[in-house]
Each structure stands twice: as C-alpha cells, then as structure tokens.
C-alpha cells in the first residue's frame, strides 16, 4: 500500500475527519486508509475467534474483508456522530470489531437450532455438578428460580433467558432469528432477570 500523505498520523482525529469530509482524491485516499485500518481490526477479531465452530480457514479472510467493507459503510454513515470522546481510530475500530464478531457468531451458529425451551435446565447443571453438600443452598435457590421462570416470566422472556443465560446463544444471533434487535432482546433479558430477583427477594445470596 502506498503512503497517504493527507493523514500523516493515525492518532490525529481532526486530520481524519477533515480528510474524510474533503472532496475528490483526498477523500478517496482517506477512505482507502480507513479501510486498511478497519481490515486490520477485523483480522484481529477473526484471528481471536478462529477456533469457533463452522469456521473454515479458507473463509476467514473473506469474512474479515466483508467485515471491513460493512464497517466502512457504517463509519462513513455515522461520521457526524463522532464526538471526539476518544481517538478517531479507537472509535472506528469498534465498528470493524462489531461487524467481525457478529459475522463470526452467526457463522458459528449457522444451521443450528437455538435452544430456547427450558426442557433440560437445570438438570444439565445439577447433573454435571458435584452434589456437594455446601452447594445444597445454591441448588435450592436454583429450584426456586426454576419455579419463578415458569410462573413469573412471559413466554418470550423465558425463551430469551433460556437461550442466552442457560445455553450461551449469542444475543445477536438470537435477535436475528427472532427478527428483532440486540438492544430489544437485552431489555427483555434484563426485565426477566429483574423479575427473578424480585421473586427471590430475601433468598438471594
């Protein structure tokens, strides 16, 4: 890659903004440089998660490039929302990391049925955990939680709690399958947890 004379220091947020808001070749050079930066971040994320299920070595760099492409669109669309609370590069990196993380999690769960029914909880936990006597109180608490899940939560809250909290389904994967947003699902999870805490009252450790 050739040098980009317009942004001479990646730490210079003002230079980034000026170059990305310029016209013509200066903007083109800034965008190319930004894409390279986003690709570095996406590759960093892909390298961290390369042992995830359903990932094939040959697909990893394509996934990183797609993530950088999507992050570039997001960064340019949100440029005016950059408040300067951090360096521009730190702000931009998070878009690439998010795009890559979401794609990796979706890939890992591709084609898998999402466990949202409370069928085998907490037998899975109780069955695999040593039934040590010092865990008796916790096991009693779990039984109370199980009742509260059945009695206090709505069906939707139950599905979200079981999938995310019990079965480690990533919240963005669940949101995509349910046709909603990650933020909305986290609110559902939060409300479900609050109900459980309220139902437990003084039993909480």
């Amino acid at each position, binding site marked *: 890659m050739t040098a980009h004379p317009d942004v001479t220091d990646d730490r210079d947020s003002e230079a980034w903004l000026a170059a990305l808001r310029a016209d013509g070749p200066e903007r083109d050079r800034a965008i190319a440089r930004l894409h390279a930066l986003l690709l570095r971040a996406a590759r960093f994320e892909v390298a*961290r998660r390369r042992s995830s299920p359903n990932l094939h070595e040959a697909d990893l760099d394509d996934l990183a490039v797609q993530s950088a492409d999507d992050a570039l669109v997001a960064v340019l669309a949100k440029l005016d929302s950059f408040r300067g609370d*951090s360096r521009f590069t730190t702000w931009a990196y998070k878009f690439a990391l998010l795009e890559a993380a979401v794609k990796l999690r979706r890939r890992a769960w591709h084609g898998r049925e999402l466990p949202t029914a409370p069928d085998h909880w907490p037998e899975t936990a109780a069955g695999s955990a040593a039934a040590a006597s010092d865990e008796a109180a916790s096991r009693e608490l*779990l039984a109370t939680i199980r009742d509260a899940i059945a009695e206090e939560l709505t069906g939707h809250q139950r599905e979200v*709690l079981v999938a995310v909290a*019990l079965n480690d389904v990533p919240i963005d994967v669940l949101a995509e399958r349910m046709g909603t947003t990650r*933020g909305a699902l*986290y609110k559902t*999870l*939060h409300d479900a947890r609050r109900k459980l805490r309220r139902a437990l009252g003084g039993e*909480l450790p």
Partner: protein
Amino acid sequence: MTDDLLSRLLGPADPELGCEACFDELDRYVEVELAGGDADAAVPGMRPHLAGCPACAEEHESLRDLVAAQK
C-alpha cells in the same frame, strides 16, 4: 458452576447500560481504562453491563486488546 449459573440467570444487581449505549461509550471507556483512569466512574453502568452481556463483553475485550496492541 452453580454460582456461575446463578450469575448468568440473575444478571448484575447494579444498574446497567443497554447494548446500544454500551457500544456508544465503548471507545471512551476503553481509552480511560488503558490510560489507568477510573473507567467505571467515567461510564457508569458499563461494568455491570459487561458482566451481564457476553457479546458486549467479547467486543470490549477485543477493543481493549487491539488498542493496547497499537500503543
């Protein structure tokens, strides 16, 4: 094991941000953290959210480690 399960089911006790606010504040939080400042005071509600949301926690770790590696 059981404690971990309890914490996943019940989530954080303290007030927390949602995922969108977490993403909005993540860059600032990480920079304060890496500068050795009080990131939890700078962004109240972030720490409990990261404890309650595995996906946001992953993204926080990645951004922190990436920015730290660039220094």
